[in-house]
């Protein structure tokens, strides 16, 4: 009997052996917190900038009185080294090696920084600041206007309370925001920008639409209504100067001719192409690409699953009509303007 019981016990142990991690996790839990996946702020483009500003306000308020004004080199209450300059960037002494600033920098007066500086920690500008050419920033928070010189690099985020100008050939990683406007130079690469107005070079405003689109466009016979939109199987081409008064879903590609107007939103299961001066009052969605011609206007968000190209002087949204342009890859020609947000996880580029 004993050998049998021993064998039974050993067999049971052998069977339970693979379950030991499970029993251990059950008895002594190591991973029972709710999944920290509920990101309540992922949609807020200035999230990191706002958090930094709050952090810095707390730290600065806790500094002794003599450290509150003038040029100063010291530590924040949490031990972070910082340097504050008030009159000239010459005050930005280098602790480790020339051209590399390893302290948190506070710029207290309007100034232009030297070329080729590398800032390993955040820069906080309380007055208008212009960065030098070829500089590298971890992150920048500017209360007022901010200018980034040519070939600048921002590694994490940048925010300006005033207008932010970005020099040509700059690379902007992470989230770039302004409370007023971001003006991009040529050949700027970025991922995510949010501002009431984002333009490549000079802003041109919403292109005038008067004088176009005089004649209504009759949808093909096979187009059928689904709720508040019409669905068209296959491709659809809206001729130049035509006007469509409803929203459209096209199972193929959609081409909107020069000067044509769509009063609603449009979606294509393949590509959407807006010719020069075409207008869509609502949103534009494509499962592949959205190509927007020169001086075209889109009133709502522009979404594509592959690529978006905005032509010269084309506009998305308006001063009272914020909108998002989102696709893995985005290209913006000179004069293109977006009122709101641009998001391109694989990269956006001006040209």
């Amino acid at each position, binding site marked *: 009997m004993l050998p049998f019981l021993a064998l039974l016990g050993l067999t049971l142990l052998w069977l339970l052996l693979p379950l030991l991690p499970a029993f251990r*996790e059950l008895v002594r839990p190591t991973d029972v917190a709710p999944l920290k996946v*509920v990101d*309540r702020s*992922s949609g807020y483009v200035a999230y990191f900038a706002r958090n930094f500003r709050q952090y810095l306000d707390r730290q600065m308020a806790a500094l002794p009185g003599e450290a509150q004004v003038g040029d100063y080199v010291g530590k924040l209450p949490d031990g972070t080294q910082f340097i504050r300059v008030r009159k000239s960037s010459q005050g930005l002494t280098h602790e480790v090696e020339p051209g590399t600033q390893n302290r948190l920098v506070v710029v207290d007066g309007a100034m232009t920084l030297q070329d080729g500086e590398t800032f390993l920690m955040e820069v906080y500008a309380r007055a208008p600041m212009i960065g030098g050419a070829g500089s590298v920033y971890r992150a920048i928070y500017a209360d007022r206007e901010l200018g980034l010189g040519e070939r600048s690099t921002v590694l994490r985020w940048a925010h300006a309370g005033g207008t932010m100008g970005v020099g040509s050939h700059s690379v902007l990683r992470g989230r770039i925001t302004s409370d007023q406007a971001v003006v991009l130079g040529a050949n700027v690469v970025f991922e995510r920008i949010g501002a009431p107005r984002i333009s490549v070079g000079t802003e041109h405003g919403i292109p005038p639409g008067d004088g176009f689109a005089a004649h209504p466009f009759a949808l093909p016979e096979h187009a059928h209504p689904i*709720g508040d939109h019409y669905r068209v199987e296959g491709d659809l081409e809206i001729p130049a100067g035509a006007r469509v008064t409803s929203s459209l879903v096209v199972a193929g590609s959609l081409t909107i001719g020069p000067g044509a107007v769509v009063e609603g939103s449009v979606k294509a299961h393949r590509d959407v192409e807006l010719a020069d001066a075409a207008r869509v009052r609502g949103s534009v969605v494509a499962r592949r690409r959205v190509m927007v011609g020169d001086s075209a206007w889109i009133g709502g*968000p522009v979404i594509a699953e592959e690529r978006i190209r905005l032509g010269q002087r084309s506009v998305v949204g308006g001063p009272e009509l*914020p909108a998002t342009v989102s696709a893995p890859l985005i290209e913006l020609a000179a004069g293109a303007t977006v009122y709101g947000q641009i998001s391109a996880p694989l990269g956006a580029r001006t040209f």
Partner: protein
Amino acid sequence: MRLALLIPLYAIVAVLIIYTVRHYLFTLNRLFGRHRQPYVDIGTAAWPRVAVFVPCHNEERVIAQMLDALLACDYPERQLVIIPINDRSSDGTSRILADYAGRFPVRVAPFHRKGGKPGKAAALKDAMEASDAAIHLVFDADYLPGRGLIKQLVGPFFDPEVGAVMGRVVPMNVNKTLLTRLLDLERTGGYQVDQQARMNLGLIPQYGGTVGGVRRTALIHMGGWRDDTLAEDTDITFRLILAGWEVVYQNRSECYEEVPENWPSRIRQIKRWARGHNQALARYWWPLLKRPAHLRRWAVVDGLLLLGVFAVGPLLLLGWVLAVALYYMGVQLSVGVYVILAVAMYSTLGNFAAFFEVAAGARLDGSRGRIRLLPFLIVGFLVSLVSVSWATLVQMATFWRKDQLWDKTERHREAGAMIPKETG
């Protein structure tokens, strides 16, 4: 006689193989495929008017926290109205709603329901008329939406083809019991893998009735919510799909929920789901099979499999009964049949989340420790198998009855319970 048993057995095995392959495809897609979430970055827009409906039947334990969370959302205040549907509550729910309506007279507009059919579907149907907002979102009373969730759920509606949007449900009372931990794993597989894979592959993600919403014009186009169903979410999903609308799943739009903490509550919940889902199966399998011109062939196949997902349990049980009967009748089935039945049991019992889907989901979520509980899922899945099969049998035996028994899910939250903190 033997042939009469063999034919259905092989048919069942074929069905189970199809479901198993489907689960593997979804898992591989999530591990190696392109993650499709085209609308998640819409952060700035001229936001449309939104009504958030919160059906409440005796929800005094949870409703205040839910309303607080909604009021804290970053959606433009003038564009958002919260409509708690007080569905014949007999506890303190009415008093709490009156308090919020008094303090936020523009933003909170309770809809009081004194009679009519019981159940969430009927409540939504009645309350739908209370708002002409362009988007109707629906949350259960125990949910805790994050600050940016409303915008995330509304974003996809800028696509004119989108009729409904579904976000991800994340349990928050994970640490309570073994059941809550198992349900946490099941949700991980079901949403992170199953739903997102269907989104990635252009198939049919399911609107789940909460953490989501419907475009009002689509709802009107459909004739509104049906009040003769126990699963208004599955019902509206298939009505929308058949009519040419698109249903979108957005994995990044997460919301905390309270999952059942005891087995009786869980059993009642899953039996209700099974009955509702089977109703939808009976109603929509034929219209779907006829394949409307706008639907791709693979979407139809996926839709049929989705409709039949609660029928898999009873089928599996039937398969085992047939196999055992044939064995005692002296029929030598090939080993392969038994293997398939065993593998299928392992991979389809979870109805929405097979074991490997759960494992893949946990890996994608970056959670390490909880994955060790995987072997215990067999317990939860066996309970589900028996519950779903019993519910299905009862439903088939009483198919002529029109009245629907609505089992409300029990709430467990205590006053002052800890709420998961904001992350990100």
